[in-house]
């Protein structure tokens, strides 16, 4: 039996507005419990919601970035259910008419395969609070600071066929929202989380199998693990003749398995209807075009520009554009040294390797764009050879500092002085008469041997080009 997993993700993105979606309370993360929950967030009697214009703009930005239809009219609905961190007993969301319609996103999936995922819709809604079950012995503690944080819920079609692709898709969305500056993408703060709809079917089937929903996954690693464990569970069930029940499940990372949620969510009747406290949201074409004009350069466009204008090869451009922070770093280096290819090489071969080894993000990189630009400039003006440049780089990585000073400290200055070099050239030529004869008779390969000897003598600091010239000159 060969099974094909089918996955769709519902990603919740917390929008980085100043104030909350329906109230003027501070939207910043953190603080003492319930310090950031105003009367409107608390759902006290008599309060009313008023919509944050920035949340609307951010939603539109996202929609434009995925090539989606922006609905000129959208409605806010009440989604009714009881939970202690949902103060009003309903969540204000969008049901039938969301602000963003069909769109799509493309990315390099598993093994670099070009993958496209259709996005069904994206809508605005308010976040709920947090319930903590282990702070008090017999009570659950409710903190409503997060209530009212604007969320953009992005719903994908079931276009993902492996847990790995799902994780890559999740990451791609993370990068996009960071690019658009609508979310900081910080999963540890809960800025993004996702629910996964998972089903399996026989590879030749057209119909989808029954699906389950895994809720509230909040790390890339868990996305893949949770989905894989659920896929396996479903396959095991089906192969033993058991049916899959449509239900909501939670992932337990300690046991690496999903378990059914106790709440009767499957039988929930949300009784969606238009919220009478909020009027229909009208978004004009003029506003949409204004936002389109203000969109930052998107990853795909940036990659194209890197290839076409900066003449990077496709593969390198792709790597640099995958994360906005990396692309920004690269652009800052280029701005200061004007050597796109060299910058790309250094970043991709050397910088990324070190970051990966030390488990750091580009944000944490202690070698600043200025430092790297300086290294490159010093190569260009022949102060450094590629070998000494690497030495400098390694040294700055361990202990950041001013490159010019470090060159002095370590004596890395390339030896350029003709008279000095001539003396050494003369010496090695004399000491190796056999090879000298070979050189004189036209075996140009031996040149490298002599250059190597000079480099050895100078501990790698000789300017190889100069050495080359001097050797040739001495033959004449």
């Amino acid at each position, binding site marked *: 039996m060969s099974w094909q997993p089918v996955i769709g993700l519902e990603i919740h993105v917390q929008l980085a507005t100043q*104030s909350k979606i329906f109230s003027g309370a501070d939207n910043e993360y953190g603080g003492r419990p319930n310090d950031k*929950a105003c009367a409107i967030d608390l759902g006290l009697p008599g309060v009313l919601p008023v919509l*944050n214009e920035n*949340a609307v703009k951010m939603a539109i930005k996202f929609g434009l970035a995925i090539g989606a239809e922006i609905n000129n009219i959208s409605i806010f609905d009440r989604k009714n259910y009881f939970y202690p961190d949902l103060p009003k007993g309903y969540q204000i969301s969008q049901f039938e008419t969301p602000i963003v319609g069909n769109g799509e996103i493309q990315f390099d999936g598993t093994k670099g395969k070009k993958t496209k995922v259709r996005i069904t819709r994206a809508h605005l809604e308010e976040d709920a609070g947090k319930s903590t079950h282990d702070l008090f012995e017999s*009570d659950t503690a409710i903190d409503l600071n997060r209530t009212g944080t604007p969320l953009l819920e992005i719903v994908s079609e079931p276009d993902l066929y492996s847990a790995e692709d799902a994780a890559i898709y999740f990451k791609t969305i993370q990068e996009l929202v960071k690019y658009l500056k609508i979310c900081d993408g910080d999963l540890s703060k809960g800025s993004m989380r996702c629910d996964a709809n998972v089903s399996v079917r026989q590879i030749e089937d057209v119909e989808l199998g029954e699906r389950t929903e895994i809720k509230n996954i909040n790390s890339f690693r868990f996305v893949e693990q949770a989905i894989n464990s659920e896929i396996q569970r479903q396959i095991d069930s089906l192969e033993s003749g058991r049916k899959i029940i449509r239900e909501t499940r939670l992932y337990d990372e300690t046991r690496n398995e999903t378990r059914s949620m106790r709440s009767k969510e499957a039988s929930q009747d949300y009784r969606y209807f238009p919220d009478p406290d909020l009027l229909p949201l009208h978004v004009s074409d003029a506003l949409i075009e204004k936002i389109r004009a203000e969109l930052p350069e998107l990853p795909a466009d940036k990659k194209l520009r890197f290839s076409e204008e900066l003449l990077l090869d496709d593969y390198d451009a792709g790597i640099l554009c995958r994360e906005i922070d990396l692309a920004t770093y690269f652009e800052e280096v280029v701005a200061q040294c004007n050597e796109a290819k060299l910058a790309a090489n250094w970043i991709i071969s050397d910088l990324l390797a070190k970051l990966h080894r030390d488990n750091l993000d580009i944000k944490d990189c202690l070698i600043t764009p200025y430092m790297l630009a300086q290294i490159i400039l010093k190569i260009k003006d022949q102060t450094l050879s590629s070998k000494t440049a690497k030495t400098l780089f390694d040294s700055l990585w361990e202990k950041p500092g001013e490159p010019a000073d470090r060159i002095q400290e370590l004596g890395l200055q390339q030896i350029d002085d003709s008279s000095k070099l001539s003396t050494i050239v003369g010496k090695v030529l004399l000491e190796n008469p056999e090879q000298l004869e070979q050189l004189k008779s036209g075996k140009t390969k031996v040149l490298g041997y002599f250059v190597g000897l000079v480099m050895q003598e100078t501990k790698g600091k000789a300017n190889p080009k100069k050495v080359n010239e001097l050797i040739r000159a001495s033959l004449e």
Partner: protein
Amino acid sequence: MEIDVDHLAKLSNLSLDQKQLKKTQNDLSKIISLINEMMIIDTSNVHPMAYPHDNHQRLREDVVTEIIDREEMQKSAPKQEQGYYLVPKVIE
């Protein structure tokens, strides 16, 4: 057709004893009959009216305007400790 008052009560987190259930069932049936009678009007081609006027949602400028006094907000809280609202432990 019998109205499943029990189900409605569960959805709205209300509990009714047997006597109340029966009375509520009767009342609801009468109300629904009244509603059914009156709504035989032809509404084909009529668009539902969810709002009394045709205005659009106004947008609020994205600035922090609320200064929150937590103690003041929590002065009517039935059970509160260290700033948290407390409820019986919820098992997920």
